[in-house]
């Protein structure tokens, strides 16, 4: 049965309890010291907002993004958007993974198996939401073990009848987890409720990506760092539906030439002696 993680951003107050619960359940270390996208720091950087995490990382599966907007009444609006893997219906990461380390659970989550992952980084580079990130562990001189990491929608909890850690901990009910139909109905009801006060209220994730995550946004998706339409990158389609089949066909043709060549030269050689140039003196 397809489940859905429903995030009602209008109810999010930015407490970041979901970030902590995620780290606790998935046993992920804090970002006290580290290197995020080349930026090195010793402590959590203060960047003037209530957002503490700047990007997904191998130890950060979820984060609450914050955006300040000028309100019409002269005040400010705070937008909080809890972000994690979208568990896309047509998952780019699944398409590109060369070792089938990424699969779909019966509940609809896109599950990344770190045991099978070889760290090629295809999913990292091609994800339309830039969610998966590589975990580096040095094993020797020049030898690094790399593992892609991302939210698995607490597949272990869900399979045992629990709800994901982020949904469980959310004190305002902004994060809910349940059957898709039920969540979609909740979202639609909420949009109607919010329309008078928030004309920009909309559902995100019903048609976009069509996955297991549904958002209720009060403003344009861009303010939450979400792409307006997230589709499988054209390069990936070109790769999977053109480059590979055409290339493999060409190699198949080459192998056929070898087989034909061996057969017609050795098993069934020409009857007449082939033409030879005059002997060279």
């Amino acid at each position, binding site marked *: 049965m397809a489940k859905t993680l429903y995030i009602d951003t209008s109810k999010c107050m930015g407490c970041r309890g979901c970030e902590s619960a995620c780290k606790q359940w998935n046993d992920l270390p804090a970002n006290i010291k580290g290197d995020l996208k080349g930026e090195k720091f010793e402590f959590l950087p203060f960047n003037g907002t209530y957002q503490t995490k700047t990007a997904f990382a191998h130890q950060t599966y979820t984060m609450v993004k914050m955006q300040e907007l000028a309100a019409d009444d002269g005040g400010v609006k705070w937008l909080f958007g809890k972000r994690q893997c979208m568990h896309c219906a047509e998952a780019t990461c699944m398409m590109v993974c060369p070792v089938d380390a990424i699969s779909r659970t019966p509940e609809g989550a896109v599950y990344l198996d770190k045991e099978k992952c*070889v760290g090629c980084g295809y999913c990292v580079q091609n994800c339309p939401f830039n969610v998966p990130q590589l975990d580096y562990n040095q094993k020797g001189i020049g*030898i*690094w073990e790399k593992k892609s990491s991302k939210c698995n929608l607490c597949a272990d909890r869900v399979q045992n009848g629990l709800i994901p850690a982020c949904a469980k901990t959310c004190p305002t009910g902004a994060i809910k987890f349940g059957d898709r139909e039920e969540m979609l109905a909740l979202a639609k009801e909420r949009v109607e409720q919010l329309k008078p006060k928030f004309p920009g209220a909309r559902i995100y994730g019903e048609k976009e990506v069509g996955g297991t995550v549904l958002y209720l946004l009060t403003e344009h998706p861009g303010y939450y760092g979400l792409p307006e339409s997230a589709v499988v990158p054209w390069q*990936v389609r070109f*790769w999977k539906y053109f480059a*590979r089949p055409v290339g493999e066909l060409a*190699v198949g043709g*080459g192998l056929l*030439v070898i087989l034909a060549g061996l057969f017609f030269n050795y098993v069934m050689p020409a009857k007449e002696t*082939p033409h030879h140039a005059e002997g060279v003196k």
Partner: protein
Amino acid sequence: MAQPKIGTLRNGKVYRFDPVEVAAHWVHTISFFALLITGLVLFAPGGAGWLAKLLGGVNVTRLLHRVFAVPYALISLPLLVFFSPRGAKEWFREMFHWDKDDIKLMMGYFPEILGRHADLPEAPKFNAGEKFNSLLTLFTGIGLTLSGIIMWWPQSFPQWLVRLAYPVHDLAFLGMCSMLCVHIFLSVAHPKMRAALEGITTGWADAEFCKEHYGKWYKKVVTKG
């Protein structure tokens, strides 16, 4: 001892390639195969299992693929260009110069692969098939090198380009492998073309073979010595 002149005929053999041309060919061959085998870990079915184990694990293979990329990208071509300008000039001139005879030979060559006789025009130093192979080697080499650099340091390039590098790398290597099937079959197993392997290994190729397969070149440059 002074190098013999290209085209020198001695003991029924013709001097076809100088040692630099030979070395450039084999540095390219060895590095290409090393890259192919290490690269197949991410391509062959189950490659990350059995093949990676054979090569010392995926983490070691990842390093090996980068190690062999260096001679592939940086040694064979500069070696030819800087140490055998004559050989490089001939190679480039031949692969970019196609006349009617080359096209006729290309179109009519298939029966020859199968050991049947075809009436074909005479060829210069490289016949049309070898010219095509050279073009493919050069351009897939450029494609593999550029896309490989992008994949090696993805954070230094825009994301759309990194994403494009993967299909380019695949298409280039598969295209080259397709050509390689024919190239290797002809040089290793084909009863007549096999003689070319001796030429690119020792520099000296059978004179009768050269006269038959590279008629234009033979008439122009071969002198008794």
